[in-house]
């Protein structure tokens, strides 16, 4: 999809529209869509300055103008004084910054970032994520950010599109996607590990395999999903699961329990000080408010 938007692939069908203009058949060098590649794709035979100045030079800008743009960009990404360096001597984070600066230097209308942080180690990833957000905000450029990382997606974006098999399954604000996903795959990716089948509607209640759920239904969801951390051992108003502990994994801040009930496995978080052995009978409550309806 990124290749099609950038113009590297011609789509078999469908169109690419930018600002209301059909750019499906526009050449990739005329589109004004910047790409930051996962492996940065810096030109190894050029210096940092040569890389950042590549786009402006292609536009036919004067040497002086190219230089100004390059310096501005280096400034922006916090790499002042790096202009003469060879790209092969840079660290991963620095390469990433140069790649970003190179793309921003041509003032693209849209910038595509293809998992830009995936090649970096965790601590660097988080600090660069913050910088990236700041720079992109400041530049006010529409950004399409591709990632497999849930927290990257949530923290960076204004809108999230959940892609599956080349289709957008679900789209919405980070909060919407995190708290109220409507598709099974989205929900499961966002941490809703447990599902409760909905059997039917009875008045103002949904009938589920674990009992009735008070609901003002406009249409019938196929199932309700909840997160492991929503479940509790204390009695609350909600669904009750009476099951047997099949497995327990101690994870420091909590226990992750596998609880089976009627042949269905639920993943439940228990407090760190709790102690549930295998084969133990256990009663769990899932508050109605933490259930999310899944329609497809």
């Amino acid at each position, binding site marked *: 999809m990124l290749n099609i938007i950038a113009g590297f692939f011609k789509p078999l069908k469908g169109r690419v529209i930018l600002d209301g203009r059909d750019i499906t058949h526009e050449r990739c060098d005329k589109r004004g869509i910047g790409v930051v590649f996962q*492996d940065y794709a810096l030109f190894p035979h050029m210096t940092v300055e040569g890389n950042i100045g590549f786009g402006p030079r292609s536009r036919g800008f004067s040497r002086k103008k190219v230089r100004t743009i390059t310096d501005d960009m280096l400034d922006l990404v916090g790499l002042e004084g790096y202009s003469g360096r060879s790209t092969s001597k840079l660290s991963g984070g620095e390469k990433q910054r140069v790649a970003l600066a190179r793309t921003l230097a041509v003032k693209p209308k849209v910038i595509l970032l293809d998992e830009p942080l995936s090649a970096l180690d965790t601590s660097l990833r988080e600090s660069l994520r913050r910088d990236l957000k700041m720079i992109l905000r400041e530049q006010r450029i529409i950004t399409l950010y591709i990632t497999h990382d849930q927290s990257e997606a949530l923290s960076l974006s204004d809108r999230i599109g959940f892609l599956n098999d080349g289709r957008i399954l679900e789209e919405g604000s980070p909060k919407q996607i995190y708290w109220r996903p409507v598709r099974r795959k989205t929900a499961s990716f966002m941490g809703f590990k447990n599902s409760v089948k909905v059997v039917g509607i009875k008045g103002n209640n949904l009938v589920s395999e674990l009992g009735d759920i008070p609901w003002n239904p406009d249409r019938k969801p196929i199932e309700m999903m909840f997160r492991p951390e929503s479940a509790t051992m204390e009695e609350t108003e909600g669904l009750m699961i009476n099951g047997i502990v099949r497995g327990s994994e101690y994870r420091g801040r909590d226990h992750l329990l596998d609880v089976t009930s009627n042949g269905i496995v639920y993943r439940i978080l228990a407090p760190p000080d709790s102690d549930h052995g295998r084969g133990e009978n256990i009663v769990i409550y899932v508050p109605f408010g933490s259930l999310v309806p899944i329609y497809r």
Partner: protein
Amino acid sequence: MRSPKGIDLFDRLKWPFSYLFVLTFVLIFCIYPILSLISISLFPDNGGFTLSEIERVLESERSVNIIRFTIIQAVVSTIVTLAAAFPGAYLLSRYRFFGRSAVLALGTVPFVLPSLVLAMGFISLFGSNGTINGWIMDINSSTGLSIPALDILFTKQGIILAHIFFNFPIALRILHARFDRMDVKMLLSARSLGAGRLRTFFLVVIPQMRYALLAAGSLVFTFCLLSFGVVLVIGGLTNATIEVEIYRQFTGRLDFEMAGSLVLIESVLVLISTILYIWSTSKDGDLRNITLGSGFSGTEGRHRIGLRSLLIIVYVVVISLLIIGPLISVVESSFHRYPEGDAEYSFHWYGSVLDREDDPVLGVSPFGAVINSLLFGFLTIIISLPLSMITAILIRRKHFFCKSFLDALLLFPLGVSTVALGYGLVKVYSGGTIPLAGSWMIVVLVHAVIAFPFGARSLYNTMKDIPPNLTLAARSLGASRLETIVRVYLPLMLPGIMIASIFAFAISLGELGATIMVSSPEHTTMPVALYRFYGNRDFGTANAYAVIMMLITFVSFLILEISHRHLIRWGVNS
């Protein structure tokens, strides 16, 4: 489902046309001339198809002996070469020792040097008046012993010995590269599972190396079949292989039907060993990445200072002497003169090479041959480079309906008898619509045909190391197709272009078989001149030519090495 079409930097290069272009070139200047020679044998006197000419060859005792000797020398040379290279390849890939990189660098020498230079070196070292015999004589006279003098010149043993010497580095290169890719952990786990050294060797090492051995063996075998200059010079008049006999038939005896039959027989032998080579490389994925043009890989071996050091030292010294010895010897001989029986050092022979007076034997001045060789070398680069480039781009394409055919085509000039190619070109293109025979163009064209597949290989290797994202990035930054090629693609291709150019130059510089057939006297090149002087028993001048060729090759590879260092500093290929 159809997959979407990606943009490609070279999609303006309409591939059916470029494919046709390369194919036509190979067809016109390589395949057709060869086929036309073979047809002399199969359709004599423009009559119907007959095998009687082949039968005539097989009934003649002389030609049967030649065919038998050709096969025997190739088999023996191959086996000894493999046996000598195998332990060396193992040592070089497993151990690090002083002089290791020097040995690796030396290993490329016989491959890039013109074969005649090595043949001259071989003669001046082992010949009857050679360095070693000189020593033997000295020892005999000072100690009273009578060690028999070595006489390998004009003998069958001499040919085999020379072939082992020439092909040793090729075998070493292939086997070493394959050893380098062998996982040491596999050997260690075999040992930890209770297998002894021998069991490990026979059950783990040999099975893994068998395709490499087969590939190296079939390649060496092919080279021994097609070897021309070496056999011509060392074998003398009495000992010939098929290739030399083809030359004699075409130039002296003028029995064209016999020559055509010999071309056919040789082609069949080459075809068999080429198929064996292709089969064995296709069986072993690690072999496919090993190319003849590339240098030795720099994989670090293990440090080892122990009992085996002595063995290593002996091996290294012997190999180095074997490779350097002839070269030093030829340089020394080129300064030797015997005016009154006693040796004296002089520049006399270089004087005769630099002579600008027309030489009646050559048809050109001796110095003119040097100039011719240099000119043809540069022209060969100019003609072969675009062909190599287009071919490399074509091989690079993923979907290709007869890609394997093109791959095979690239091996074609490797497996072609250069003498037959040369004669075929003269036969087909003298007069008629394309009167090339006798012109300088035919020399350049035949050199380009032989050289361009090598270039295509090295360009292809560089090409596949360029990440496609780089050109996409350039395009998305607003660079046009042309701009991307000029500013990104070509600079990144430069190492490959350099290798392809230098190899084209080196091949042109050293080519004898085809050149001797196609070149008219005024286009005599250095190898041809060297052979003419050698034939006139003017060994001094021949040696001087050899040294000059050696020097030119050395300088051109020095240029390659230096430019490579610069390019590697860019991070290209790293």
